[in-house]
């Protein structure tokens, strides 16, 4: 990582985001806490529906009301609790100091404006550039995200670009305001692997150039392994494990993380390895039990796990070292007895 200081850019504390539906109260995010430091690249992973997007939208206060409500917690951005901020203040922060790339690029780009116009508008608004400066800067940003012939392509409309290129244009747009924090929600799911890697490569490079903090939400654990500094594993609206990337991959200490890593097919084994299967389905977030949400699928679940929910705490086995590295997990089972499944055997 490039020169990092310990300055906390984003501090999410006990966030609760609920949706009031006919089926009951969907606790999409329920007691989520994490920090992102200056220049840090954080990966947020977890099964579909576990609340990743809702947690990101909550940071920008973009939860549709009704049915959604941020029911509790704090979102402290550079010392300021965004949950207390006025709507006017939030408009200053969105797309200016915190930029977000949404899961669905086609719905976020305006189809009737050229991409150059869209980026320029943002540059004029947020950075106060004049028309000519904005035009040159748009081309430079498109070049940074790897669009060939950028000065020619600024006059093209979104549909004239492939899905992967649209995704990169979204990132160029997000960067046009020189944000302090970039949140990218699944920027890669529908893309093939070469394009996925290119995109994360670009984000990693820009993180260095712009000295911003990045949170990327993704299903692809391979990309996480390659690019992020810290991994947050989410399950049913909460973090179940968090730690430096190498620690999480080498010594996962939550049964869900262990299962998740073992279910990824790998290319580097000498023979074919059948991925392991985590049995069952993620829980219905409207009807959560009082115990650990993972207990119904967990091979290690004990009575204690069904009775009450474990909190995120420093991993005990590595002691002081864990506290320093910030390896935490929410699980009652003896960490020393939990080991990574070796997928290369």
């Amino acid at each position, binding site marked *: 990582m490039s020169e990092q200081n310990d300055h906390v850019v984003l501090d999410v504390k006990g966030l609760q985001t609920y949706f009031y539906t006919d089926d009951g109260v969907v606790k999409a995010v329920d007691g989520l806490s994490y920090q992102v430091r200056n220049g840090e690249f954080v990966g947020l992973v977890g*099964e*579909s*529906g576990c609340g990743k997007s809702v947690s990101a939208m909550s940071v920008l206060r973009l939860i549709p009301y009704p049915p959604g409500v941020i029911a509790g917690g704090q979102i402290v951005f550079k010392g300021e609790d965004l949950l207390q901020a006025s709507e006017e203040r939030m408009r200053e922060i969105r797309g200016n100091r915190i930029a977000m790339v949404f899961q669905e690029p086609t719905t976020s780009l305006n189809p009737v404006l050229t991409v150059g116009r869209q980026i320029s508008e943002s540059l004029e608004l947020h950075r106060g550039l004049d028309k000519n400066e904005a035009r040159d800067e748009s081309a430079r940003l498109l070049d940074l995200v790897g669009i*060939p012939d950028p000065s020619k392509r600024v006059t093209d409309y979104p549909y004239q670009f*492939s*899905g*992967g*290129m649209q995704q990169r244009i979204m990132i160029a747009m997000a960067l046009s305001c020189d944000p302090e924090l970039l949140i990218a929600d699944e920027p890669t*799911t529908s*893309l*093939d*692997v*070469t*394009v996925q*890697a*290119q995109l994360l*490569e670009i984000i990693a490079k820009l993180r260095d150039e712009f000295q911003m903090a990045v949170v990327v939400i993704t*299903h*692809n*654990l*391979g*990309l*996480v*392994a*390659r690019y992020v500094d810290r991994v947050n594993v989410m399950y049913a609206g909460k973090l179940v494990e968090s730690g430096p*990337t*190498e620690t999480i*991959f*080498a010594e996962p200490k939550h049964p869900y993380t262990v*299962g*998740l*890593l073992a*279910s*990824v*097919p*790998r*290319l*580097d084994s*000498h*023979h*074919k*390895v*059948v*991925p*392991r*299967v*985590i*049995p*069952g*389905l*993620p*829980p*219905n977030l409207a009807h959560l039990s009082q115990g650990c949400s993972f207990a*119904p*699928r967990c*091979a290690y679940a004990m009575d204690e796990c069904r009775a009450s929910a474990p909190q995120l705490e420093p991993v005990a086995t590595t002691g002081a070292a864990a506290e320093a590295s910030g390896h935490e997990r929410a699980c009652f089972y003896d960490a020393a007895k939990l080991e990574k499944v070796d997928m290369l055997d």
Partner: protein
Amino acid sequence: MSDESTGTAVSDQPSDAPRQRASVEDVLVDVKNLVKYFPVTAGVLRRKVGDVKAVDDVSFTIGRGETLGLVGESGCGKTTTGRCILQLYDVTSGSVVFNDVDLVQTKGEQLRRMRRHMQLIFQDPFASLDPRMTAGDIIGEPLLVHKIAKGNEYRERVAELLSMVELDPAVASRYPHEFSGGQRQRLGIARALAVNPDFIVCDEAVSALDVSIQAQIITLLMRLREEFNLTYLFIAHDLAVVRNISDRVAVMYLGKIVEITTSDQLYANPRHPYTISLLSAVPIPDPVVDRTRERIVLEGDVPSPMNPPGGCPFHTRCPQATDICRTQVPEMKKVDEGHMASCHLLDAI
């Protein structure tokens, strides 16, 4: 939705041992010189201005009981190849021999009867299921269309199909939106199995699912393959997934197959520069291992299939390209037993 309806326990895994494949001589699908061009028209008169050469002279065979993986970047022609085999597109030229019958020359009632033996499982379980039909109707529809079962027999078969894909038969009366993505994909598989097919094209069948659910579906597809001696064409852009399920793998680039071999051989000893770069780009979910791998990053985008480059289609992005690559189209050459690649520089690399 309850948990007990899906999933196998962690302990209940199919074995990792190499499986016994049906003999290669018993060819079920024989694709020869398959070509599919999509005309591109312009203006109010819809004048033809060119062709998208989606599949351009592709040949391969799939043995009975075998799984052939088909990989390549977005837009290289994988889906088109699958749909041409199933005769869902009018083939421009070439032949597709299935069970000794050339499907391209087969029409009407006879083709309809042949179709029963071939099924397609799509990527998007949401889009491929009619929201107003119950799970039972969706799975049972092919039974009615092909007049295979009705009445009690129909209901029994639907229940049997649901349990085959590890769903509770009681879910037959539910609607698609009441199922999760993985469960919807199970419904899609049950529907494909309804007519007792020999051959299934799985087009990105697990791509939209997250890893844990993906592993459940792959395990299911492997089990069904053994149980019913199914033959799969397994299309996907995730090379690690393809390796797991395939006996052999074909790599496509711009409408052509550039390399084909056993899946173990492809990953251990890739020969075409495109295959090599594609494999090197796949991140390994282990930061320590991943850091030590050499990565070849391809420059530029895939050329337009309307106007593919002359010579070797890959030469515009190939790190090794020489003069001959720019002018002459390389032939498919034998590299090893059952290993073919089309590259001028095979001896040099």
